[in-house]
């Protein structure tokens, strides 16, 4: 039996040793906001936070997570970045968007007022095939400059 701490709640599940965190979130816990687009660590769609750090859940074995707090997009639904993304039109097909927002939220946690260069550096691991990047950059930049730093932290 495995215990996971996700978005402030505790979950118990049985999982084979080879189960990845992404599979566990999506298939065992029903948290399908986390997407799998490549399944091998090359695109960032599966990004979640572990203790506030963005990681790739598709190549993280769920049994190695331990007591670390997992934050998925479901835990960031009321984060100001969601509105910032929608208002800036930083969402096209939307398949990469949850991962983008998790990475952006992690960036703002570490750096509440990132520069454009810092945004580009921190979001470079989240591919968007629709090419929404200018709007994503704008959404994060605006989201960061408008919200007070404290309000932009994940609510946990």
């Amino acid at each position, binding site marked *: 039996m495995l215990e996971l701490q996700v978005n402030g709640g505790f979950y118990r599940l049985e999982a084979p040793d*080879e189960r990845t965190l992404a599979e566990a979130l999506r298939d065992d816990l029903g948290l399908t*906001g986390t*997407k799998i687009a490549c399944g091998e660590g*090359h*695109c960032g769609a599966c990004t979640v936070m572990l203790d506030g750090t963005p990681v790739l859940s598709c190549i993280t074995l769920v049994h190695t997570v331990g007591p670390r707090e997992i934050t998925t997009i479901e835990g960031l639904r009321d984060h100001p970045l*969601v509105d910032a*993304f929608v208002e800036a039109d930083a*969402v096209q097909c939307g398949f990469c968007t949850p991962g983008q927002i998790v990475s952006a939220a992690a960036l703002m946690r570490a750096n509440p007022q990132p520069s454009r260069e810092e945004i580009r550096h921190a979001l470079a691991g989240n591919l*968007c095939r629709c090419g929404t990047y*200018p709007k994503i950059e704008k959404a994060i930049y605006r989201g960061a400059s408008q919200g007070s730093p404290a309000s932009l932290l994940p609510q946990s």
Partner: protein
Amino acid sequence: MPRLLKTEREVEGRVEESWILVEEDALDQWPAGPLVTVGRPAARVDGRERARGEARYTADVRLPGMLHAAVVRSPHAYAVATRVDLERALAAPGVRAAIGPGDAPGLAAEAGHFGAPVAALAADTEAQARAALELVDVEWDVREPLLDPDEAVARGELHGKPRRHERGDVDAALAEADVVVEAEYRTQTLLHNALETHQAVCEWEGDRLTVYVSTQYIWEVRDQVADELGIPRDKVLVICRFMGGGFGAKNDPGDYTLVAAVLARRAGRPVRCALTRREENIGAGNRNATIQRLTAGARADGTLVALRGEYVCALGWDGWLPSTAGPMQMLYACENVETVEYGARLNTPPMAAFRAPGFVEGVWGLELLLDEVAAKLELDPLEVRMRNHADADPKDARPFSAKNLMECYRRAEPHWERRDDVRSRSDGPWRRGVGLATQIWFGSAAPPSYATVRLESSGRATVGTAMQDIGTGTRTAMAQIAAEELGFPLERVEVLVGDSSRGGYAVVSGGSSTTSTMGPAVRSAAADARRQLIEIAAQRFGVEEGILAVQDGKIVAAHGGSWPVEEVTRLLEHAQIVGKGACGPNPTGMRVLTFGVHVAEVAVDVETGEVRVERVYAVHDVGRIVNPLGASSQVEGGIIQGIGHTLSEQRLLDPSSGTVLTQTLDAYKLPTIADTPPEIVCEFVDRPDAHLTNLGSKGLGEPPIIPIAPAIANAIRDATGADVRSLPVTREEMLRALREAREREPVHTSQPV
């Protein structure tokens, strides 16, 4: 009153005439410019669902008892499966059904490319299904693959006949030209890589089939699946509420949907068939590579007198020949033109439509050729383009329904004039320059297409159509159009799409035809609903219909009275107003096209071959703009996808075995946010096409990807004097071109002959 009409439709360069049933299209177009809702920026109506991870994609569909399919694929580029034995696989843990060649459409014994599907099975878990693949015993008769497109042409291995176009006398015109430029241009094979891979979940309930599928064309899936399985079309329900991109590769059901349907029938349980990223990059379609051998003849003043092009399109095992010579035939006023296009049939994975198929490739060659003509004549490339502007379709003298390309050129001028300043900012090894290119693409609507608008007692409106939102913001544009016509605020309009039971036939989300086709249908449905609302209001308030209108959710009378819409709709209780609408015909005898210009500023590190795109100006003439915010995202997205095409993306095959080597996203390099130009300026002519439908809008999905590669390559020449004629412009290609340019010096300027 329904009318049967004949109309022309032109989807991605394929022209067909068809009969359409049109309910009515008597609406005058709205005046040009921003209206109350249409023409003003709107955030996506479904943006929050997507951003919050609530939107349910096909990838998120989990049905009770659902099995997972896996597909056996050919490890050879060309081979025939002489024996396929499923026994061992069927006995494996969790496996519930297995099928071989001929059991489902798409599964074939003859494997014409690496990764061709041969057999499939379904198991309780994905891991069990993948593990059982190893247990399918296949004996292969391996054949010698044909991988070289020129050799395929020489051997006559073609899809269809070579397509020829001839007008005037090219040889005579070239003999009299002041300057003749000949060059060979190449484009690479590109992979769509929508982030949601191709996938479907199929579930049978009795003789009814429900298909959840990531598709650009719900109706085509419905019809093809029904026809292939031999069941009535109305027995198939197709659902695609949200989809994670398509870019042209999801226009039909694909083998994965049919495999899932057949396996589901055999197993008596729902089956999911989802391609992995690697399968996606092997077998889900590609933009075909081209070899273009082009010649241009011009007079000293830049007037084009002759164009000739031979286009070899490496289509692969399957596919269709996109109009690659179209831009050469249609973009410039040139009397003598000769083109031939070959569709090489190779043992490589099949092509599929990819965002402006053919024209992306054709404009690459043509717009580089034009700059080479300008350079030889020492003329301004923009001037040469304006000089050769076509006032009517140069192919058949048909008038354009609307063409504002000259205005695009004029608007591009100040950005083009930045080049002295840009060049002067060259610094050490970094050379800077500016380039431009023109785009041309189809713009007509693709009727038929139908929509309804329903008004309920709550005073809210629901638009229903059986279309899908590929991610371009279709729901939002349709909501804006309905709101405008109804006189409702945007938030009072709900748009239901993504389900074949939600309306009549709806067009493909492809060929840039969504807004141009569905927009008019939604508008006429909204107009019908508004008419009925006013009829009822007139009875309710005892006034003439003629003095009533709907504005901002209120019924307003010419004499000053004003009532909230609910006061009328409340009377309805469970009765509803249903407005019906359809897309009307395209204008007869006219060419409906879109145009645009991109101006790119680049910096090239001449020691390392690094190319950075620093600024792009884009102006497009696509008729009325419904949502300027969403439209700018389309343009930016096209530019960025095009930058990937230009600088980093290429599918590579092992030259001896035909194996796809770039299956993973570390090897196939999509652009990242760090590859985005720091500045993209996006403008629209935003003038409704007066001849086109009740809306005057053309599509915008494809145009912005067309001119970006040649604009960048022309800027590279401006910056460095080096000719890049082959995509992608990787470090090695850039360094090669720079070396070639150095060796050519000091013969840098050439005189007109």
